[in-house]
């Protein structure tokens, strides 16, 4: 809620403005009140918007702490004051969560590692060199980045089946790497281009080799760009559902998103245990949300600097 001090301060300015432009003095008091009411209404709708947007996440965490009997009552329980961690015990009991966690970690780390190297090299090429085919390459990247996974996943499925790479970490990582590379190259290109080549030249005049100048001067300055790209690749691979659905069909090779869906499916066979289902959603979502909140400032500035401005 706005503090009263600031509201009055703003109103004084607008009030003065009205006088300066010769606004009708008589109406001043009325318009002041209208303005104040308007401010309060705006603030209230802002809070309402925030509540609506945050509610689903709150409801997930709250339900995950309640027993199925409590959730089945005819009136919703708004605060989980009688909450326990029993649902989490149920969910973690059979160990499948940890299997999926391990698959997800391996796929994601492999993807991030390879993407960073390959995308960085390509970004270097398009922002530091002039070469034939450069424009075509950039255009191709921009278009490939927009291609929907559903437009290719049947063919990718057949390819992986022929290569005996269904249900393998390597197989799906190859697809993820290719899916993430175009955008990361485009993003990193902005960062590389943002570092003046003169810096490198200065280092070379001071006696560095071109490679040395690059690694001692440009590379450290690129760290924020690499972090932003790494975070982007991480979130893409960690949350991906579509391609995983067709490539990782074996129960033992499920990634976390697939595990979550399978868990709900399994619960549906009986009456759905919503408490346990929400506990499993929380296990999948909350680490990502915390990570996202932690890095987002850096991420968005990276996205803007790299992708929008250039």
């Amino acid at each position, binding site marked *: 809620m*706005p503090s009263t001090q600031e509201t009055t301060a703003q109103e004084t300015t607008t009030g003065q403005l009205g006088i300066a432009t010769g606004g009708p003095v008589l109406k001043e008091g009325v318009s002041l009140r209208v303005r104040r009411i308007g401010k309060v209404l705006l603030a209230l709708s*802002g809070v309402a918007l925030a509540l609506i*947007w945050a509610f689903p996440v709150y409801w997930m965490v709250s339900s995950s702490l309640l027993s199925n009997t409590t959730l089945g009552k005819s009136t919703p329980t708004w605060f989980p004051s009688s909450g326990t961690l029993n649902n989490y015990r149920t969910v973690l009991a059979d160990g499948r969560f940890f299997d999926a966690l391990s698959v997800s970690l391996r796929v994601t780390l492999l993807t991030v590692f390879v993407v960073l190297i*390959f995308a960085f090299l*390509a970004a270097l090429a398009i922002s530091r060199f002039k070469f034939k085919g450069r424009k075509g390459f950039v255009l191709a990247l921009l278009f490939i980045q927009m291609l929907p996974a559903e437009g290719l*996943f049947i063919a990718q499925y057949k390819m992986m089946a022929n290569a005996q790479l269904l249900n393998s970490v390597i197989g799906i990582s190859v697809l993820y790497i290719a899916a993430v590379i175009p955008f990361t190259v485009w993003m990193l290109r902005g960062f590389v281009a943002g570092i003046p080549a003169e810096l490198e030249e200065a280092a070379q005049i001071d006696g560095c080799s071109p490679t040395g100048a690059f690694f001692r001067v440009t590379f450290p300055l690129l760290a924020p760009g690499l972090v932003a790209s790494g975070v982007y690749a991480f979130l893409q691979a960690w949350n991906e559902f579509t391609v995983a659905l067709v490539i990782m069909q074996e129960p033992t090779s499920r990634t976390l998103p697939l595990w979550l869906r399978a868990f709900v499916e399994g619960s549906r066979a009986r009456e759905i245990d919503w408490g346990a289902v929400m506990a499993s*959603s929380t296990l999948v979502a909350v680490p*990502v949300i915390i990570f996202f909140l932690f890095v987002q400032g850096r991420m968005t500035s990276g996205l803007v600097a790299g992708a929008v401005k250039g």
Partner: protein
Amino acid sequence: MSVVTTIDAETGVTAREVNPRKRKIAPYLLIAPAIVMLVVAMGYPLGWQIYTSVHHYGLAQQFGKAAEFVGVDNFTTLFSSSTTWMVVIRSLVFCLVNAGLTLLIGLGAALLMKAVHKAVRLTIQIAMLLAWATPVTAAVTIWIWLFDWHHGVINWVLSHFWPSMVHFNWLGTPLGFYSVATLIVVWMSVPFVAFSIYAGLTQVPDEVMEAAQIDGATAWQRLTKITLPLIRPVLMIVALLQLIWDLRVFTQTRMLQDYQDPLNVDLLGTYIYRMGIGQSDFSMASAFSIFVLLLTIAVSWFYVRELIKEDN
């Protein structure tokens, strides 16, 4: 793209000599790994898909019989089916409604963030970040619970106003199904749009707005005649991205279909999935995939043009 090329023009002037031939092949070596990955994971499947779409690929071919070339027969069969056209039309309508709602709400949220006090703005931003950060599978699961016909909180609230909403089965009718899918998509997409537009709004100079106010422009006039034209580049880019993303919605519909007889609610992605993975009809799935890719590229063309424009 003007920032690019200083080095190779100027390394000649610097202390060390660089072999010009090395300079020439260096960029190709640098992009090679990325290109190899793209060719393996996308180029090859795309080639296979084009090949398969013009061949008959049925059960016999599963067991090794060579596929027979049939030209555009698969496409003709596919697009003479009313099911296909229904899927296409539904997807286009779904895409337009979702993108439209997302943009409107996103714009509204951004304007609200600009208008309110810092503390309220921060509250909105944190709430939006929560929705943005939630993995899509978790988001769908949460919304299914919110809309649960028996114990869901949404039916509980609605039943206070419309008693008939007690135990209303949202996922039991196509319209209910698309409404739930739309809510999930909009909830997840608005934050990105709101943040991008808000970033654009902060670039609009205050003096311009003050000048317009002094000249007697109403709030509505200031919005439509000054603010919106000034942030047009941002609006264009988020609108096009939203169109492309909403055309390819898959996870939400696929997961919601677990709860509903799926035949009459397919959108583009789930239709391909059903033909390809469900029925192993690779020719039809490939033909339709190519159609979807072309459709996406057509929309993307405008987006890429905007990006290149921004870049220059």
